[in-house]
């Protein structure tokens, strides 16, 4: 069967330097780890089209390849295999470089096509892709770094050096402390010391701390579960400094995210139960991982609460907010039709860029019901994510389709919300009030949602939008959220 192999990488060197090495068809012996030696037959130069090179591989095999095309203008050459120890037929490969003008780097694209026996196609594709092309990328990087004094690619040594050196009983840190509840300014940056982690805890140096609406309520004193004096914050990301003696599976230097019912995240360093920690995969940055709680809440609503089906319609209140913008991207990736409410046209544009098909700017005189019915052709929406408490709940129920479902989340105004069940009966409606932590006690379920979230972030199906503030400016972050001036998620960065 026909097999095609494509591998590409960005080399941190200008194109002229990379091409100066690669343009020599006889150069592989100097930089490719799999090639022990290379020579040109008839002693031709490495840029003679038609020339044949003879490789001895490090495993002892011999092969011959012929240069078919070579262009200094296009930074490309094409060659074919004449004799090979592997069952590759009609093997033709092309190396092509392109300049990355932004940053003066080089794109290296290496691809080939050949025929191979059916049962060996996958094996050969992987072997050539990894052992020849990808190994070639690393080999050339190393060659350039050693021979030409370019910076070496970050290896394991660099990672070790970046680890925090201090690992003592007590570590100095800064934390935001609320002595008495009130305005954003009641949070004061205070010097603290953090003792070694308990037996089932890890001690972490935080890199990103999520700001959730719950933190604002804790600070104001409108939500239970926050003792004074206290440090707000239920979610963060960081690197493990040291681990308690009974902790399994986490090690110094691991990158983790956590969320916890217990507050205390607004700090540089803290201890946290190892049970609450989730290891971060490569490809998910610390700052993106700080949207964990909002992201898995979005997943929870769509999967467990609504059991959403493709083609259904969902209305998301505050679609430009921390939860809203993740929820709308997730819903869009499931092929739902997304309607969102926002307060300004700027937020409407932001929402539209993040999967919201119909961002509606809601003003005091807007008839939301009329708009929703127009968009849904009089049918109403299947799911409604309600975050404005008692306000607007009647309108929400009026906008639902038959058998529709309204999930009341958050606790915006802290006011009691009354509900007439007879209203629900008129259209077989469901109203739920999910509190995410109740669902997340089911750890295997939570880990499934986390896995889905990270996969969507890695594939950029979901792109978190983040407004970052230094930890010392937490008051400003809170004020901006209360003034409804933020879009996307808000994150605090210690040392930033």
């Amino acid at each position, binding site marked *: 069967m026909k097999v095609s192999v494509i591998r*590409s990488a960005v080399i941190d060197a200008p194109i002229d330097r990379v091409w100066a090495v690669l343009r020599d068809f006889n150069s592989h012996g100097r930089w490719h780890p799999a090639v022990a030696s290379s020579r040109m037959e008839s002693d031709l130069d490495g840029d003679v089209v038609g020339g044949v090179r003879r490789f001895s591989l490090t495993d002892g095999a011999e092969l011959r390849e012929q240069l078919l095309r070579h262009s200094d203008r296009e930074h490309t050459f094409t060659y074919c295999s004449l004799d090979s120890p592997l069952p590759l037929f009609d093997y033709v490969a092309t190396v092509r470089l392109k300049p990355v003008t932004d940053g003066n780097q080089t794109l290296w694209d290496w691809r080939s096509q050949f025929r191979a026996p059916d049962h060996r196609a996958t094996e050969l594709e992987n072997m050539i892709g990894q052992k020849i092309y990808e190994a070639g990328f690393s080999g050339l990087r190393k060659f350039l770094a050693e021979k030409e004094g370019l910076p070496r690619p970050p290896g394991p040594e660099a990672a070790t050096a970046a680890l925090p050196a201090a690992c003592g009983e007590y570590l100095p840190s800064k934390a935001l402390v609320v002595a008495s509840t009130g305005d954003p300014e009641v949070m004061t940056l205070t010097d603290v010391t953090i003792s070694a982690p308990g037996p089932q805890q890890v001690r972490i140096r935080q890199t990103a701390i999520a700001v959730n609406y719950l933190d604002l309520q804790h600070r104001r004193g409108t939500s239970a579960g926050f003792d004074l004096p206290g440090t707000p914050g239920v979610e963060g990301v960081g690197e493990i400094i040291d681990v308690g003696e009974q902790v399994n599976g986490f090690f110094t230097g691991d990158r983790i995210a956590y969320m916890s019912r217990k507050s205390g995240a607004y700090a540089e360093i803290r201890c946290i139960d190892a049970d609450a920690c989730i290891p971060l995969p490569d490809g998910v940055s610390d700052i993106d991982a700080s949207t964990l709680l909002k992201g898995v809440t979005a997943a929870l609503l769509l999967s467990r609460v609504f059991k959403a089906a493709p083609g259904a319609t969902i209305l998301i209140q505050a679609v430009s907010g921390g939860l809203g913008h993740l929820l709308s991207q997730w819903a869009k990736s499931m092929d739902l039709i997304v309607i969102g409410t926002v307060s300004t046209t700027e937020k409407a544009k932001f929402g539209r860029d993040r999967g919201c098909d119909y961002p509606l700017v809601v003003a005091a005189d807007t008839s939301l019901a009329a708009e929703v019915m127009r968009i849904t052709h009089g049918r109403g929406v299947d799911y409604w994510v309600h975050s404005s408490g008692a306000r607007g709940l009647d309108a929400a129920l009026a906008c639902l389709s038959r058998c529709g479902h309204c999930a009341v989340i958050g606790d915006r105004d802290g006011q009691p919300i009354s509900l007439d069940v007879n209203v629900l009966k008129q259209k077989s409606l469901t109203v739920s009030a999910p509190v995410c932590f109740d669902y997340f006690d089911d750890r295997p379920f939570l880990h499934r949602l986390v896995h889905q979230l990270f996969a969507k972030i890695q594939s950029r*199906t979901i792109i978190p939008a983040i407004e970052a503030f230094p930890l010392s400016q937490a008051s400003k972050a809170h004020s901006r959220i209360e003034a409804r001036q933020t879009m996307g998620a808000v994150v605090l960065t210690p040392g930033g």
Partner: protein
Amino acid sequence: MVKVYRSTVLDAPADRVWRDLRDFNGMASWHPSVVLSRIENGQPADKVGCVRNFQLKDGSRVREKLLALSDYDYTCTSAILDNPMDLSHYIATLRLFPVTEGSRCFIEWSAEFDCPPEKVAELGETVGDGVFQTGFDALKKRYGRR
């Protein structure tokens, strides 16, 4: 003939970026200089030959015709029909290449055009930095850093 070339690397797979860039009518949603865009005569934005009419931030208007669109090799080529600058015979191509290492993508934007000799440097900069690199910077922000 003036030639302009710019390229960069985006932190998202080519498929993901192409989903946004293949929309010939979508530039207003990602390019900071483009305020409004519409396709003339109500044609679909992926119909080769359609004309987009957009308004720039400074209020001026540009009309561009779609000459080629390829989902197979992530390429979009267009020609300027009317513009407020001294450009003629302007043809630009936007193309993505997957970077398999780290599942990112390489994006290149190139253009060829004619203009009065005294305006070569100025217009080369306007197109290369003002249009291409400004667009890249917005895309880099949009897809974030992993």
